[in-house]
């Protein structure tokens, strides 16, 4: 996959969002948290579509800053975006 957070893309002043994956999504991708370059109009769907071998989007929920959101919600710099596999309860 593209390697945000892995190289020189995260200059100190560069706007980013934090992306988190959980449970099966984390293991499928091989990482649980990365920073991602932010650009105007960036949405969770755009990030999701760049993941290699993503799970079907209809099985995944999105949270922005710890609240459920849609795949099309515009992201702001420093947002925390999480992709959540089906919740199986506590």
């Amino acid at each position, binding site marked *: 996959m593209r390697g945000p957070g892995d190289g020189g893309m995260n200059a100190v002043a560069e706007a980013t969002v934090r992306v*988190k994956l959980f449970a099966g999504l984390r293991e499928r991708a091989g990482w649980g948290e990365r920073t991602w370059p932010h650009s105007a109009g960036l949405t969770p769907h755009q990030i999701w579509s760049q993941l290699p071998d993503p799970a079907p989007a209809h099985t995944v929920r999105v949270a922005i800053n*710890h609240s459920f959101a849609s795949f099309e919600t515009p992201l702001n710099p420093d947002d925390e975006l999480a992709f959540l*596999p089906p*919740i*199986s*309860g*506590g």
Partner: protein
Amino acid sequence: MNWPSCRRSVEAERREPVEATMPRLDLQLLTTTLDPLACLVAWQRQLADLPGGMPAAEAHFTGRVRGVSGQGLPLEALELEHYPAMAERRLQELAMVTAQGAAAVLVAVDRRGPAQRCGQALLEGLQHEVPFWKREWVNGVGTWLEGNTPL
């Protein structure tokens, strides 16, 4: 998941006292075995300190890990993962929603109906709206569960 004790968290101790009419939520994720009866006793001691004393109605639910997987095979372990900040936030929100439902019958806090309905609403919210994920381990193989057992 293991739940070790029922003492109030340090964070809970730091909070400002809440009004008696406001919903209270003490959330702890524990790493050792839960003693549900000790938990109940500790919780009731807190209730006894409320202005006006203990409410007349309480609803209790204790969930235990089954000994078998969803496929009926012997379960070696049940792993639980959660999204800490969001899980706590969702639980707080669910508690508020539930309390608002009960708020209409706050005078009826001594009745079994609201107590049981609120308890079930919180439990179902926990199962479907709070980011927790379970993984069953059978014969050394872990399988993430998708969804919950039927109500």
